């Protein structure tokens, strides 16, 4: 937000004895150079990112060729497999083939359904617990217990409880992904200055606007951090859950390839999972930064990436 159209500082105003356009040009030039600086930094960051990935890929390629193993194909072979198998679809499917889209769609659908449910439940419950000390006292032991249970241990339990595979996957995702949202919402709501809540009450702001206009936006930066963590958990649980009793999804396809000793395909299935994780992380990171910038955080770009 540093690029906000700040009024010219006093020195500029004092110097503007000549034609006005001179001062305006100076300000514009300053703004341009600031923008150029940011663009340069972004370019360098992307170059470093590409260089780092290329170096790692080259190292793997060299290792796989120098010490050949049936289980670890060179990355170029996996890339060739991906091109020959998946990139065969029509243009309106982004050139992706039916098989990949089918499993990808199943996984993304489950992940987003479970994550969205976890977010809605977590935020609602979090606001309730954040605002009510009594409710917090009662529920806190349960929360502490629940979040300490690794969600994957529930897979055998859910296997018995939910015969429908999709419901089972989604419930598992919700069970694991709800905790960071819940705990961060509680922290965010409790961190709001009581003086702000007093002021808002005295202004006679109604409960709906108090929730949507004060509580949620004030806690938003903290809640967004919770959303980011919970999305990573949602992806993890999607893939793991699909390895048990599923007939579709990225986790199923990955395990299926391994069980058919198709090691190249097995490695290839890791790629869409990684891309999915990175996309989700990047999207929520952007959202987090935008949120912090709105709150006047001095430098939201310093966030861990």
């Amino acid at each position: 937000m540093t690029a906000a159209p700040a009024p010219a500082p006093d020195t500029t105003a004092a110097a503007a004895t000549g034609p006005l356009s001179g001062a305006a040009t100076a300000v514009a030039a300053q703004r341009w150079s600031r923008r150029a600086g940011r663009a340069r930094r972004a370019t360098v960051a992307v170059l470093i990112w590409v260089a780092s990935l290329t170096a790692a890929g080259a190292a793997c390629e060299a290792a796989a060729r120098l010490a050949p193993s049936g289980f670890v194909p060179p990355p170029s072979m996996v890339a060739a497999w991906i091109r020959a198998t998946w990139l065969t679809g029509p243009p309106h499917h982004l050139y992706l083939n039916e098989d990949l889209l089918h499993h990808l769609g199943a996984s993304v659908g489950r992940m987003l359904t479970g994550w969205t449910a976890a977010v809605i439940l977590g935020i609602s419950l979090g606001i309730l617990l954040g605002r009510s000390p009594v409710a917090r006292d009662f529920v806190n032991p349960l929360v502490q217990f629940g979040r300490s249970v690794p969600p994957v241990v529930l897979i055998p339990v859910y296997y018995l409880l939910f015969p429908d595979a999709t419901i089972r996957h989604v419930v598992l995702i919700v069970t694991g992904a709800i905790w960071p949202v819940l705990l961060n919402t509680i922290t965010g709501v409790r961190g709001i200055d009581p003086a702000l809540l007093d002021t808002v009450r005295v202004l006679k702001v109604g409960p709906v606007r108090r929730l949507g206009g004060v509580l949620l936006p004030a806690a938003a930066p903290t809640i967004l951090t919770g959303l980011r963590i919970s999305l990573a958990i949602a992806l993890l649980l999607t893939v793991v859950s699909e390895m048990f009793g599923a007939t579709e999804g990225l986790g199923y396809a990955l395990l299926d390839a391994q069980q058919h000793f198709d090691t190249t395909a097995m490695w290839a299935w890791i790629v869409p999972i990684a891309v999915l994780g990175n996309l989700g992380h990047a999207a929520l990171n952007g959202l987090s930064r935008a949120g912090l910038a709105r709150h006047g955080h001095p430098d939201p770009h310093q966030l861990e990436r």
Partner: protein
Amino acid sequence: MLTLDTLAHTYRSRDRRRDHLALDGVKLTMSAGEMVCLVGPSGCGKTTLLRAVAGLLRPTGGTITLDGQPVTGVPDGVAMIAQNYANTLLPWRTTTANIAFGLRPQHLPRAERRERVAAALAAVGLADAGHKHPWQLSGGMQQRVAIARAIACRPRLLLADEPFASVDAQTRADLEDLLLRVQREHHMTVLLVTHDIDEAVYLGHRVAVLGPPPSSIIADLPIDLPADRDQISTRENPQFVALRTEVARLIRTSGQEATTRNAAAPQRTGA
């Protein structure tokens, strides 16, 4: 317009013996257009009293009456300015939007709302800062936004809780004069809490002194200084000096009495 009658408040604790009797038998009457400053030692229940008047806290004893109506919840037409003003502004809204936020519940027509926001901004000298966010402003300017938000509501009663306690001395003097001017222009009724005796005498039409807890009002002094106050000449006025000395002495003696009383009966507890 505002009457506090034998107001008392006890903060209950789980251990009954640790109950804290903050206020006991507070009596205070304010008429419309009056600025009353409430001073007292720290921890004497100044903020408790203010929150009770704002309807944010239900006192355990006594009554509060505002314009003939007993205060049981947050009353209409009250505005509050807090000490930690920076935390009471919404950082994601611009200055204009922050002030307008307080007007929405009053269901005014849009044009009237806009006009009131502009007038309030002009009154605090921030006419050009409407598009900025609170974090782009200095501490003194943020407090002016908080004042503007309060006066835009045209409150019948303005409550201020140590409003200038966390700004530097020069800004503080400016804001004191700003409040005096706004109070007179809008003929506002103001109840201002402060721990600064000079500030209380400088601003108030009356100064009410709260004793140490369990607090009651131990003195209610009219301030007969000229209505036009000036940071330099008013403060060197012998009458001002005499008044501030009197208030300071009242606070000190009440504190000493409380200490000897407590020393004589160390087991003494509030309730």
